């Protein structure tokens, strides 16, 4: 596996000296207490914010050297809340591709299939969807741009068990079959164990500890992580 993203000693108001890499086709989880800077870190990777210090590289090139819209399409993000736009599910799904006039009639059905929603959802108004359905549509909306990297901010936190299972299944498929690289924030430690091959533990804006998920969970080194596991 080769390095796809490298976060090189990055700092801003909310994160401090963060350093890690994301390997191509891997699923990395971020765990840590609220206010640890996890969401802020994702915003930096999508360039919704910029660091004050340090650099982020994507495919060996500084992310600031990419045209910003192209970068954001390639490093897609799904937020904790769905933030769907007013209108139908289809209008939401085609938002990204339509900006480049790359939307085809059949694309909506294919995207809904991925998130296990039926074709009938295309014409539904988003306000009539349940929370879980909205989150799946938001996920499909990001997938519509066919990003190489997916940044997921606690996307399963408000979902029921069945939908969580569906989403986890989808994440596995995206990594194994489509070679996507995923960086996912989760509050659910069991989920982090189930999904991640690599895990970052963030605390007070810093990545306090990182490593292979199994080893990190079995042998936490820092007192902060031990304390976090103890709840």
């Amino acid at each position, binding site marked *: 596996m080769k390095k796809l993203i490298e976060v090189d000693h990055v700092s801003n108001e909310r994160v401090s000296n963060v350093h890690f890499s994301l390997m191509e086709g891997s699923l990395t989880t971020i765990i840590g207490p609220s206010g640890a800077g996890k969401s802020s870190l994702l*915003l930096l990777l999508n*360039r919704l914010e910029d660091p004050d210090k340090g650099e982020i590289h994507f495919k060996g090139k500084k992310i600031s050297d990419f045209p*910003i*819209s192209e970068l*954001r399409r390639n490093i*897609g993000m799904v937020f904790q809340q769905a933030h769907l*736009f*007013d209108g139908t599910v289809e209008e939401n799904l085609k938002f990204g591709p339509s900006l480049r006039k790359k939307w085809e009639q059949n694309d909506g059905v294919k995207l809904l299939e991925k998130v296990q929603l039926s074709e009938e959802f295309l014409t539904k108004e988003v306000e009539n969807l349940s929370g879980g359905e909205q989150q799946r549509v938001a996920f499909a909306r*990001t997938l519509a741009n066919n990003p190489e990297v997916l940044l997921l901010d606690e996307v399963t936190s408000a979902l029921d068990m069945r939908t969580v299972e569906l989403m986890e299944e989808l994440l596995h498929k995206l990594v194994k079959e489509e070679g996507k690289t995923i960086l996912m924030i989760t509050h659910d430690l069991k989920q982090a164990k189930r999904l991640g091959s690599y895990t970052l533990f963030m605390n007070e804006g810093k990545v306090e500890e990182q490593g292979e998920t199994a080893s990190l969970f079995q042998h936490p080194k820092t007192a902060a992580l031990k304390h976090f596991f103890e709840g």
Partner: protein
Amino acid sequence: MTNISNLSLLTMILFVMIPVSLSYLFSLGIGKSAIWSSIRGVVQLFLIGYVLTFLFSMPDWQGVGLWVAVMLVIASLQAAKRGKGIPYAFLLSLSSLILIEVFVLSLWILFNIIPFQSEQVIPMSGMIIGNSMVATGLAFERMKNEFHDSKGKILAALSLGANASQASQMIIRKTIRAAMIPNVDSLKTIGLVQLPGMMTGLILGGASPIEAIRYQIVISISIFSSVSICAMIISLVTYRFFFNRKMQLLE
């Protein structure tokens, strides 16, 4: 037209006393403010009466030029108050109000709708500028509120590759729509629910109802158009101030 005598005018005190008494009765705490506003309103109107008399005695282009300029500055200052926090709010208000006034006045004169006389241009321009001022202020406020309330959606749009203009489309649409809806509604019910102020004034002044409605049509449609243009200008210009050059949403 019947003249209202000073004595008759004094009886209006009774009308003021009704809301003032209600305020004391229900402890609304607006008694003083109601009295003060009424006195201020009366003094302002008398002063304006004298000012207008003076303006109407001047050559038309001087009277119109002077008073329209005063109205534009006062309206812009007032509208800009609602745009607090938005850069150049005053200049933006002033430019859009000037644009609207020039546009509307040119059409009125060009198509011989009204003659270029102070008596006609000043009150009608006042209505255009006044309504546009309200629309400008509301557009500022709406933009600020929408950018605050829809922050998540805008971030989502940006994260999907939208530029600032594309990410703001939903807010721009909402702002223009919000400015237009009250006017659409009021046009629908005009004359049925209430006789509009201008028409009422003309009828009281002795004009025939048919003549009065012609003026009302001109002013109502002109206001509708001005308000829509104002909301469009403000939203299309101000959305940029909510982003930086890197297409990032500012706090």
